[in-house]
């Protein structure tokens, strides 16, 4: 990053304080995910039945659930798992998708068409349904939630990287690298990929929010994470049984956690786009 880019970023942040707030939110979320389990006031797993279903109070900020567990503590501890699922899914998807897409965009031809067909097939499914079926097929475990989420994100990265590399493949500096004797692999990995990475950062941030929603949705319907593990989606699922009797805090607080996490990633994504590409500003 040059100092001009930094200055530009600073200028954007001043003009758009929301991005700064979102970045702070993401930072906070990360800190909670790292240190959360060691700072919570109550044990997130051990039940305390006499204290069951208490509304929010000073002792239990977000109330207690049907087994008397402190909802606030569970929310904090859950951040690590939710974030880990989203980050690893998007990471895998990005690493594989960017390379496949870049190679296709650079090489073109038969490989490009074959991959294009595969992406078309993936996109012909409603993606959440596809993820659901994949978790069922691979086995109902957390790792498979990550794999399924990674696979449904894959088409976006492949397409994006392919398009970005495709417009650059015949530019002067690429030809120069080739003329200097660089192999095709080296041109793709050392020159083209780094060149499209900044643009993909936006996609990553937006996708993280989407991946969190997706993973929470899967565990809400009973796939992946198993009780008593604290996870936002499954907390909502457990609280759902008590909503018709007015125990709103069991659903509202995990829902709020999900919403804030996704909101931060989305706003950050928009902000990063503004910094990288001033023309796209809305």
């Amino acid at each position, binding site marked *: 990053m040059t100092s001009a880019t930094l200055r530009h970023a600073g200028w954007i942040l001043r003009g758009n304080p929301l991005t700064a707030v979102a970045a702070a939110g993401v930072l906070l979320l990360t800190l909670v995910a790292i240190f959360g389990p060691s700072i919570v006031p109550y044990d997130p797993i051990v039940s305390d039945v006499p204290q069951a279903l208490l509304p929010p109070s000073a002792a239990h900020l977000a109330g207690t659930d049907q087994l008397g567990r402190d909802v606030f503590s569970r929310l904090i501890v859950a951040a690590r798992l939710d974030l880990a699922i989203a980050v690893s899914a998007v990471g895998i998807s990005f690493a594989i998708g960017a390379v496949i897409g870049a190679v296709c965009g650079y090489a073109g031809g038969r490989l490009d068409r074959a991959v294009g*067909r*595969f992406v*078309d*097939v993936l*996109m*012909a*499914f*409603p*993606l*959440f*349904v*596809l993820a*659901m*079926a*994949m978790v*069922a*097929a*691979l*086995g109902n475990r957390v790792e498979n939630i990550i794999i399924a989420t990674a696979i449904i994100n894959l088409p976006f990265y492949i397409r994006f990287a392919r398009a970005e590399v495709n417009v650059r493949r015949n530019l002067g500096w690429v030809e120069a690298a080739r003329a200097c004797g660089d192999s095709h692999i080296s041109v793709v990995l050392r020159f083209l990929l780094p060149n499209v990475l900044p643009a993909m950062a936006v996609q990553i941030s937006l996708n993280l*929010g989407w991946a969190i*929603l997706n993973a*929470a*949705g899967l565990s*809400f*319907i*009973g*796939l992946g994470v198993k009780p008593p593990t604290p996870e936002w*989606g499954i907390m*909502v*699922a457990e*609280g*759902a049984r008590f*909503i*018709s*009797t*007015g125990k*709103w805090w069991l*659903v*509202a607080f*995990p*829902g709020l956690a*999900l*919403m*804030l996490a*996704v*909101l931060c990633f*989305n*706003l950050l994504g928009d902000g990063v786009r503004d910094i990288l590409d001033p023309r796209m500003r*809305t």
Partner: protein
Amino acid sequence: MAAFGATVIRAGRRFLSSLPALFGVLVFTFLLMRVLPGDPAVFFASGPNAGKEEIEVIRKQMGLNKPVPEQLMLYLYDVGRGNLGRSMMTGQLVTKDLRERLPASLELTFTALLIALVSAVPLGVLAALKPGSVIDHGVRLFCALGVCVPTFVSGLLLIYVFYYLLGLAPDPTGRVDIFATLPPSRTGFLLIDFLIAGDIEGWWAAFRQLILPAVSMALFVVAPLARITRASMLVSLGSDFVRTARSVGLPWWRVVVTYALRNAILPVITIAGIVFSTMLGANVLVEKVFSWPGVASYALDALLSSDYAPVQGFVLLMASVFVIVNLLVDVLYGIADPRVTIG
């Protein structure tokens, strides 16, 4: 008439080009279910302590002892004849189960899409008419929040407010009260069936059951629709033909609706197709929250009790519905913008 013919040809060509994807979907679902853990023969056998020979016999009956490519051919043949296998849960043919439950899901999804469009387009237009105003910022905030709240959370909170707090909504389970008399099924869409039967009270009851799940599904997709409406309205309002229309003194609503909106609606149609895919996924969550007797909750129950055939059938059905909707979007696109078909 020529335009109509062109549209038909275009639709046909689009359909042909979506066939490879559909074939891919078939192979994909087949492979997906082949790697599913557990042996279906064991489920079909009399019990957990069924003898080895018994399981072997069932494997043979189900064709599970044949090589995988041959099984794939058998599967394609079965799908071609409309045979998607039998559900172990209900003991019925999967096609029959799906056909019985599909109208419930479609009624919910289409109502939600309608609600989303009816609220998103005016919101987007209002925001575009006064960029930077309170309305514009309000719509923006609503959109930013809308995509962040998971459907299942908004559904549950709607239940809390409208059923528990206000008592306006009925018990949030199913399409009708269990004691209600159903109208003769003509379309499978309860709202239409009740209307045909002339049962206004029944219609109202069904409508009250439908509105909460439909709204919670719509909330999630209003944001992308409103956002794209706003963006394309801004472009459209800034163009020369709108300025001309204004300068010749046409009434403002005519300028906005007939000139600007008609031209701005194209990207909205495109996004509506994508949004529909999201909604088919959200269906699973909403049907679970509201115990809606649709295909998604059926597949979900099957999935959790390791009953393959319904899941396979469901995934296939969803992919086909999605392909058909995309085709429809394409045709609509051609009608809304004649340049597409002529060019």
